[in-house]
């Protein structure tokens, strides 16, 4: 179990600055999930932690030891690659045992650890196959197994479940959580899946363009995003953002007025989660339905309004594309951001909190 501390990590490939000064403290035993849009540098950061990439500046401290000059094989980290990186000439079993053999773990111990991992990852029948003969999901599980058997001090996962079907994903998620509890080691986990982020993480780190936007517990990020990017990135469908201007006791925007809350003034961005909006016949915002995402009894309608696109929840009502409807906020739901979205000015009281 070790903590990881990143101090002012910078990295660029040629002209392109990929990681722009990241400071991050991961406490021992934590399950940290990193999210961010594709290409924002998550994998790069993970590789820097593993030692596969040299940071241009900054320090990597693992377990209190500066690792800047330590080669990957001495860092005692395990990494599941986004591309799996299975050894094509070895069977599943040999792939998993490789790291243990190199560490001179006694044979019976290797056997039992591999068997255990295989059971957990449901790889039992595949142990004697070569990677060529596996499906994408199976390969991903082997890649996980290879790291799990080694029991390193720090796990690094790069989208390890992205290729699994939903059922398996749910199951694996559970297994991972269990594994984390059982081993109690530090894990850093990159994903695009919000559910994974929300369910697995002790804390979530949101990145954008190589900058750490916000770090915090999942609900904290959902309820109190520090800026418009985080607000929009978490939650599905993502938060509606509309431009408005404080006019006395009202926010006035293109084709709507809303009662003002808080003590902001001037130009702002208003944030409304679709979950907090209801499709109704009357409401402050009105527009034509462009698309409908029905999940069953309820769903989301996507409206084209004068202020831009707005997503809102509906329950039961028969919403059709082309209809002209209104949306109604459900109580005090208004997030307010500065006009450029860089700063949150106000959050609603967290419900249930």
């Amino acid at each position, binding site marked *: 179990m070790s903590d990881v501390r990143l101090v002012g990590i910078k990295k660029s490939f040629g002209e392109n600055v990929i990681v722009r000064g990241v400071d991050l403290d991961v406490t021992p035993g934590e399950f940290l999930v990193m999210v961010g849009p594709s290409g924002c540098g998550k994998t790069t950061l993970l590789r820097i932690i593993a*030692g*596969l990439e040299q940071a241009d500046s900054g320090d990597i401290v693992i377990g209190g030891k500066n690792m800047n000059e330590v*080669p990957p094989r001495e860092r005692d980290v395990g990494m599941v690659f986004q591309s799996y990186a299975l050894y*094509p*000439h070895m069977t599943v079993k040999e792939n998993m045992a*490789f790291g243990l053999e190199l560490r001179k773990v006694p044979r019976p111990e290797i056997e039992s650890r591999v068997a255990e991992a295989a059971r957990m990852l449901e790889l039992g029948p595949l142990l004697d196959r070569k990677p060529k003969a596996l499906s994408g999901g199976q390969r991903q599980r082997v890649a996980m197994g290879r790291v799990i058997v080694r029991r390193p001090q720090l796990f690094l996962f790069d989208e390890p479940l992205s290729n699994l079907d939903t059922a398996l994903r749910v199951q694996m998620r559970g297994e991972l959580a269990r594994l984390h509890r059982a081993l109690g080691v530090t894990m850093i986990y990159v994903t695009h899946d919000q559910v994974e982020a929300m369910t697995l993480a002790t804390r979530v780190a949101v990145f954008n363009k190589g900058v750490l936007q916000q770090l915090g517990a999942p609900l904290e990020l959902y309820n109190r995003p520090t800026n418009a990017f985080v607000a929009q990135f978490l939650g599905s469908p993502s938060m509606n953002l509309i431009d408005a201007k404080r006019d006395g006791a009202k926010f006035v925007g293109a084709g709507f007025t809303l009662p003002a809350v808080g003590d902001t003034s001037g130009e702002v961005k208003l944030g409304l989660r679709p979950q907090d909006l209801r499709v109704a016949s009357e409401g402050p915002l009105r527009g034509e339905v462009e698309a409908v995402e029905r999940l069953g009894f309820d769903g989301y309608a996507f409206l084209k309004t004068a202020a831009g696109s707005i997503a809102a929840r509906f329950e039961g009502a028969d919403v059709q594309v082309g209809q002209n409807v209104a949306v109604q906020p459900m109580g005090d739901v208004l997030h307010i951001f500065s006009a450029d979205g860089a700063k949150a000015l106000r959050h609603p009281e967290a419900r249930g909190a």
Partner: protein
Amino acid sequence: MFISHLAFADAPVLKLWHGYRGGEEQAIEQAAKQFTALTGTQVELLAVPYDALSSKLTSAIPHDAGPDVFIFAHERLRQFHRMKIVAPSGNGLDRSKYLKPSVDALELDGVLYGYPLSIKCLALFMRGDRGLTAPTTTAELENALTERRQNQFTLAYEAGDFYFHAPILFGFGGVLFDEKGRAQFDTPAMTKSLNWVKSLQDRKLMPQEVSGALVKTLFNENRAPFVITGPWFTGEIDGVPYSIHPLPTVSETGLPMAPFLGVEAAFVSSRTQQPELAQAFAKFLSLGDATIIRVTLGRQIPAELAAYDNEAVAKDPMISAFRTVAERATPTPNTLEMARVWEPMKLALRAVLQGGVSPADAGQLAERRYRALNREAPPTTTPVPWIIGLSIGLVTFGGWQLRQGKGKTFAKRYPEAGRGLLYVAPAATGLFVLVIIPFVIGLSLSLFHHDAGEYTFVGFANFADILTSKGYRITEPLSFYFTLVVTLAWTLANVVLHVSIGLFLAILLKDPLLKLRGVYRVLLIVPWAVPNYITALMWKGMFHQQFGAINAILGHLGIEPVSWFTQWSTSFAANVITNTWLGFPFMMVVSLGALQSIPTDLYEAAEVDGASKWTQFRRITLPLLKPALLPAVILGSVWTFNMFNIIYLVSGGEPGGGTDILVSEAFRWAFQRNEQYGFAAAYSVLIFFVLFAWSQVTKRLSGEESA
């Protein structure tokens, strides 16, 4: 009158085959035109490359597809006579008109064949700008130069070749054949002559390992004012003043050095349809105007005496000088026994000159080699049991095949056979003509013994002789087992070096950070792109003991020059170095391609898994290279196993055939040792079996790989 009558009646055409090029070819064409103008007989000329001419003649004439007249050197007369392709010249030949030795050379058992055209023999060439007088004795020659600088010599000639040593042997009173006509080697004259030559070399009066090219260089660069060579050398002198003299007399015996005389003659084919006309034409070429044309245009040394009185000829110092020289010459014996002298003599000469054997023991060495090479013909057996056995086998096989398809006709079993056959026909024809037929001929040939055009059936005797190593010990270079071990060692050493060097360079070149990567890649592939015999000759030059680059470098490092081809180990190493130079680029290209197809994230995964660089190479790189490298290694091993060019051109089997591999040994049995085609074919069959066994092993290896 009679001739011209005949000519007009049948509108006759005479065919003439020769091996001339350049001036000599022009001369013979012009002479033929004169003959046509004179008699009205058309002459069709065909220039055949000299090396191919003899075999073309011996195969074409018996089938009436050959020429009426052909020009060849007299050494082959005995063979031509045996194969009955040459007609006697009868009383058309007037002995008194030609230089005596040139006519003597054309005599077989008192009968004369052909008409002598020109002669060739060795002479002493002297540079004219050193103020020297031509030496008449060996003592004078040795003392001709009072002071010499380093790398300067008195004399240069191709001492390792018996053609050049023969005059010296004769000068020391040597006789080639005993009373029974058998070649003799272990004689006092042999020892004395070798002693003298060795002393020339030891006293640095003469360089070591002299080739024809070196003689030319040394003479033109004024580093050796005397060279022993033949009339062909005049074309290689770069405008340096020179004169030509008879070879000196050996001071110790008072005998002159008598060079071999080669006579080129126009022979009449035994199968010509127009014998009188052909005789007339051959005679015409050897006399009068034709001779003058050949001398002035073709720069030939004429055999006809009258030509020397011609004004133009007399003025030519080269031509007249050679007349004097030729008077001392003896015609190269045209006996079969003569053909057997060359290789043992060469072996003895090289052994002495390279310092491995003392002059006194060299005769013994040659004698043993002579006995080994001239195997007694194995007893002739009758092929009848063979034919019966083969027939029974074929019939049994055919019957078995028929039984297999009992009740069904062929057409029923293979309904599409007709169309299928059509599709495979082109490939099958190619395979049949290029592979199956030569293979069957080779197989059959290995059951025969060949001696001077006659094949006798000997069954498995060739194989038995080879496998029991008859006539020499197993540990001698001539033995099959010795050669096999050398071949295997050669193959193994090469493949290991090719792969390790190729792989090493591929790993270096793979690094994307390496500057000028593209340039290195191209440069490293160059050795592969150059034809391998050119590379082989370049390396051969670099390994030269006195003038080679390698010894020069070693010299700068303070290491004694190595005589590369006198010891087995260095000679073998020279071959391996040359072939490694040729072979590593292929392995490098293959490895580079395979390396680039290994994803880098495997190395990263291994790195994180805790593998050191070496472990990564061993556990990731090597196993992943194996599928690409294994076929390359198999291919490379077969190429190397049969890499004739390098062995033949670099070490040439030196010392004493020790570095010969199976193919070069097979070549020598076929073309350098009495044309023992059957024996050579048996060698080839054994090579086939060795490689066949190897292919079975590799099949299993690569089968495991793909499983």
